[in-house]
């Protein structure tokens, strides 16, 4: 997979939300950059296949456009100060542009201003940014994505089938967990047959989620839907088996390799995707366009989608996850 850059994945259907309201559009990247720019990439972490997928898109696109790329990961969502320091290090290392998957977008207000003052364009990828904070960004709105998963649940529910949901949005205080939850709640609010029994915030690791799910299984014997992060779903698969509840519906609010496998094995009902590989690729292209002062879509929003048994076969998984045999590369040198 190394030598052949991504098959032409464009034109890729997206929403152009630059104006504030999403409009249907298609994304087509540049062929090649004019110069081998240095692009610095910041990730919250590389501890799951989701971010590995974003990295895959970034690496492939950097190779395709012949730019230099360096990727730094902060080691987890709890390391905000570290990511801020890495941003400084990026600027100090003479980057031409920065692509950032921010731990929290709001925390970089000052840093973005500094980059702007130094003439370094910054592109936001995957994680949401405050409005107009950056010259270009691409991410799905997490509230939207929560809502998409809710719609997926509704679609998979029989007409009068009751759904008693406990939600496991992720770590409290992360921002994204709260947004996911909000989108989900707002969408199911009007559904008579769907009831949210409780919401359980907690660190998005399998061990922590396992305890939360086990406790919820005991607290709410009538729970029949588990909605939460990918680790929640992973933990839930085992816990549900142990508790003898094969009827449990498990929905994950985002994608990773485990979710894909579990869906194929029929262990979960559905998961949502925001096309992380495409996001990574688009971010690099946006950065190059900014550097070359070419027209750029300010806010690209991939069309988030729920993947379930029905559509999993027909989907282009190359834009969702990295190939299983791909080893993350932290830097790309332009040839």
């Amino acid at each position: 997979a190394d030598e052949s850059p991504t098959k032409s994945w464009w034109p890729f259907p997206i929403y152009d939300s630059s104006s504030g309201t999403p409009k249907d559009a298609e994304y087509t990247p540049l062929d090649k950059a004019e110069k081998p720019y240095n692009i610095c990439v910041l990730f919250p972490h590389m501890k799951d296949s989701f971010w590995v997928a974003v990295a895959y898109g970034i690496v492939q696109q950097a190779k395709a456009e012949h730019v230099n790329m360096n990727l730094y990961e902060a080691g987890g969502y709890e390391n905000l100060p570290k990511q801020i320091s890495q941003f400084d290090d990026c600027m100090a290392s003479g980057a031409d542009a920065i692509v950032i998957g921010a731990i929290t977008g709001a925390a970089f207000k000052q840093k973005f201003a500094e980059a702007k003052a130094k003439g370094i364009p910054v592109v936001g990828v995957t994680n949401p940014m405050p409005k107009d904070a950056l010259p270009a960004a691409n991410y799905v709105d997490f509230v939207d994505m929560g809502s998409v998963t809710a719609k997926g649940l509704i679609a998979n529910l029989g007409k009068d089938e009751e759904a008693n949901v406990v939600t496991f949005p992720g770590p409290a205080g992360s921002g994204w967990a709260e947004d996911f939850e909000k989108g989900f709640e707002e969408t199911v609010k009007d559904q008579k047959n769907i009831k949210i029994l409780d919401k359980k915030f907690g660190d998005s690791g399998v061990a922590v989620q396992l305890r939360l799910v086990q406790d919820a299984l005991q607290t709410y014997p009538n729970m029949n839907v588990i909605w939460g992060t990918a680790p929640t779903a992973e933990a839930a698969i085992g816990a549900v088996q142990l508790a003898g509840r094969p009827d449990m519906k498990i929905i994950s609010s985002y994608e990773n390799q485990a979710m894909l496998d579990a869906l194929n094995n029929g262990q979960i009902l559905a998961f949502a995707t925001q096309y992380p590989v495409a996001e990574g690729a688009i971010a690099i292209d946006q950065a190059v366009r900014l550097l070359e002062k070419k027209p750029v879509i300010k806010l690209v929003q991939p069309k988030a989608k729920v993947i379930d048994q029905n559509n999993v076969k027909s989907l282009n998984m190359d834009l969702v996850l990295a190939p299983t045999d791909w080893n993350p590369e932290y830097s790309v040198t332009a040839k």
Partner: protein
Amino acid sequence: MSDVNLAAPADPSTVKAPDEKRSLGTEWLRQLALPIAVLLLLGGFGLADQRILSTYNLLNIAQQTSYLALFAMAQMVVILTRGFDLSLGPTVSMVSVGAALSMAAMGGADANGLLVVVAAILGGFALAGLCGLFNGIVVAFLGVSPLVATLGSMNITLGVATTISGGRPVQGIASSFASFFYTGTVFGLPAPIVIALVVGLVLYVVLSRTVFGRSLYIIGTNPQAAAVAGIPVKRLLVYAYMLCSGLAALGALMMTARTGSGQPNLGGTLSLQSIAAAVVGGTSLAGGRGGVGSAVLGALFITILSNGMNLTRIDGYVQMIVLGAIVILGVVIDRLRLETR
């Protein structure tokens, strides 16, 4: 066998003087082991990539160090008394959110001027002070081990931070606040560096020149002896924990200015990192040994290490391994200093 010598007895101090002098030389070298290691580290990275020694990056390192150094100093104060503060990280989060909220209450981003800054400072320090007071009372008066006490308050503070912020960033940082704690400069030096320098200097004086500081060392070395000597051990322990939280709060305000918003997860893993920095710099967890120098040195060491690894493009996971190895190495070098004892 030597014969009886009833002539004036040789004064032991003069007899042994040459010996003592010679070892003083090596003693000096030993004391400087870690600073030299830090310089070597910087030099080594500089050889690998010259951007590391650019003025811009050196300033960058200094600025990054100033935050970690503040937290390490905070931690060092309680480590001196044989304690530590696991609630430091969450305190940072809580103060960040609290300060942002009190600023928002004073009129938010549009409000300009001293009033907002004062409100933020008061709000932040009040919250931190409460946390420090809690820690101090639980440790000193209830006799709970510092680990459990601050593990408890860590959870409490975490809960408070996420609850009052609703788990979201708090907007509305006034520009006067940002300039006071972040963007402003004094003689061309960025505000964070200046603040850290001033605090470091003041803390140095407090620890080495005041009754309070002296007492902390004695409490850490031998709490029973301190009590027998009439030092109000319990009260001073409370002060120490409050000072720790206060310094953490100051760091939190600086970081809040740096991020431009109140962040409920700003503290993250700072508790452990600050302990690590203090200990790597030579503060002893057994109490009574350490100082501003050790905290700053430790913070500098860790900052240079990660800055250097970033600029020399070492892969993320490999960085973790290298960091681990070098931390151990650094302490082995530092141990040379203690060979004397």
